[in-house]
């Protein structure tokens, strides 16, 4: 990794490691719970892509907002939702972050800026732009982040959302997580231009950068610049993160027929957590024992979260139609 100009201190660098491990271990346990039948619905994991959520969200304030995708556990955790609230939501429990109304695909914690993960590809881009409009209208220095995958890039929402954010100089960071496959359709078969940053620059005259999405420091640096630009009134940015999904599109789905074992192995060797761990030690920011201690702490947190989810009550059936409307009208 070429990160000679790192401005982060050891504590911050270890916090990035901690967050990535927290996301990984939480999802590994959730996948196991899914196999045991404890997660009644779909479960799309983020394993292999943790550097992006960790690197981006480390630059955000609690009142900045994030709009996420169906693969959103990592974004929720990185934005500060507790593993307990995420696990309980996937278990369908009343203590979940959406009180059992959402599951894996609809995580909400607006009080800390998680404005929702979505089962539909594209709306996160538009809603992210809209939050930017709101902040500009209300003269707030909050910023908005829209996460989306390569699958959204050929969708009309990408063009419409980026165009509006650009023409109105909205404080938005568009984060493309290009994991090479939209469900099982290869990005190379879905577009003539896989360089998403180039699209942003050429089509919308937007500041854009392409980074190794498995390099948490590269993601962090790109996000730091983009957030600073947005907060200072400099308009939107796009970060094109090239990454790879290590597990199937969703838990329990057959994972063959569209990608090779060799390709999966090659990306496994570029695991973002292992790479950051090696760099931390090599650069003298940590010793192996420090990383082991983080691992042990995370394991304990995640064990507690799963136990909390298991022990929590299901929602009261009589509340199934609550919250459809707000006040007035």
């Amino acid at each position, binding site marked *: 990794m070429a990160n000679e100009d790192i401005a982060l201190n050891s504590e911050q660098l270890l916090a990035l490691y901690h967050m990535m491990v927290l996301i990984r271990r939480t999802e590994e346990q959730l996948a196991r719970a899914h196999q045991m039948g404890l997660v009644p619905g779909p479960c799309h994991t983020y394993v292999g892509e943790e550097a992006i959520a960790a690197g981006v969200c480390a630059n955000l304030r609690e009142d900045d907002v994030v709009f996420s995708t169906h693969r959103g556990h990592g974004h929720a955790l990185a934005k500060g939702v507790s593993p307990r609230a995420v696990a309980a939501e996937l278990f369908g429990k009343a203590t979940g972050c959406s009180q059992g*109304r959402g599951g894996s695909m609809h995580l909400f914690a607006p009080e800390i800026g998680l404005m929702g993960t979505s089962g539909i590809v594209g709306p996160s881009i538009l809603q*992210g732009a*809209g939050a*930017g409009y709101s902040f500009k*209208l209300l003269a707030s220095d909050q910023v908005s982040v829209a996460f989306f995958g390569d699958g959204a890039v050929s969708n009309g929402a990408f063009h*419409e959302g980026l165009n509006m954010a650009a023409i109105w100089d909205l404080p938005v960071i568009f984060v493309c997580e290009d994991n090479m496959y939209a469900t099982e359709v290869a990005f190379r078969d879905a577009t003539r231009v896989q360089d998403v940053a180039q699209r942003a620059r050429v089509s919308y005259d937007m500041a854009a950068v392409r980074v190794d999405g498995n390099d948490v420091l590269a993601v962090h640096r790109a996000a730091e610049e983009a957030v600073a630009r947005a907060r200072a009134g400099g308009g939107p940015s796009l970060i094109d993160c090239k990454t790879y999904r290590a597990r199937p599109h969703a838990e329990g789905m057959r994972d063959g027929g569209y990608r090779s074992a060799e390709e999966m192995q090659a990306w496994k060797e570029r695991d973002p957590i292992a790479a950051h761990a090696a760099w931390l030690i090599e650069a003298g920011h940590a010793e192996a024992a420090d990383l082991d201690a983080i691992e042990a702490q995370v394991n304990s947190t995640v064990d507690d979260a799963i136990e909390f989810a298991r022990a929590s009550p299901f929602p009261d059936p009589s509340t199934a139609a609550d919250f*459809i409307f*707000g006040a*007035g009208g």
Partner: protein
Amino acid sequence: MREITFTEAAREALTEQMALDPSIFVVGEGIGERGGNFNTTLGLYEKYGPMRLRDTPIVERGFVGMCAGAAMTGARPVVDFMIVDFILDSMGELLNQISKIQYMSSGRIKMPMVLRGCIGIGGAAATHHSGSYYPLFVHIPGFRVALPSNPYDAKGLLTTALTGDNPVLFLEHKLLLNRRGSVPEEAYKLPYGQAAVLREGSAATVVALAVMVPKVLQICDELAKDGLDIEVIDPRTLAPLDTTTILESVRKTGRLLIADETFGPCGIGAEISAQVMEQGFDDLDAPIARLNGAHTPTPYSPTLENAVIPDQAAITKAIRDLVAE
């Protein structure tokens, strides 16, 4: 009381609330300096500027989805579709996001948004500028649907929409826009889910929607000369729908006709009919009748266009037939 048009009344509601609430902004095509194709925002750009009167590219899905994000984060968008047929490009954002996010977030995120546009058949506008579509939105949990028939209701219902937490379809029939009526100068709110009994009678109940309201009222004045006293109800909002007022009226008259310019199948008349059958069956002295526009795309040529909407003769016959049952 002074008389103003439907459009002026709705614009007055918007102007008053924009002055009170700096989080309100309007998006649409030509709603900035131009003041809107139907004068919905005339004069507002000079007062409030481009951030609050935002001319957009022609991307209905895009700006509706964008407004969802704005509504979720403290702003109060008003989407001015001009012609409501254009809303169809944004249905995914509306049905999958805007109607559901209050629920999905267990009430922690609000969705204060007004979606307004002109509906209805008239002026040889042809089929991409003549739709109404309100039954689609009534079917979906999470929307309020307002269908004012006069300037007084337009101002009061829009004021309520601009001060609540919910996504509201505010639909303006194009043949009503220049109709005049008495409207208070001060701001006022009208409740949703409260029908208006516009004419009292005992021979039959007619529930009329939008442009059918003035048409039916005029016909009922004629029928009164023959001794037929018809009760006329304007629901004013379709979601929520005030079935209580309709049931009370049917208890008195025993007969019900629903007059609606838009399509019959799975429409508002079908819904009202089912609810009256479920809750007021014993009060009925005759089968419930529906009068709707033809179940067809809207044609252009005036002779064809006139053939797909219920005209005066058809309305009169439907009422006389109902009373004779």
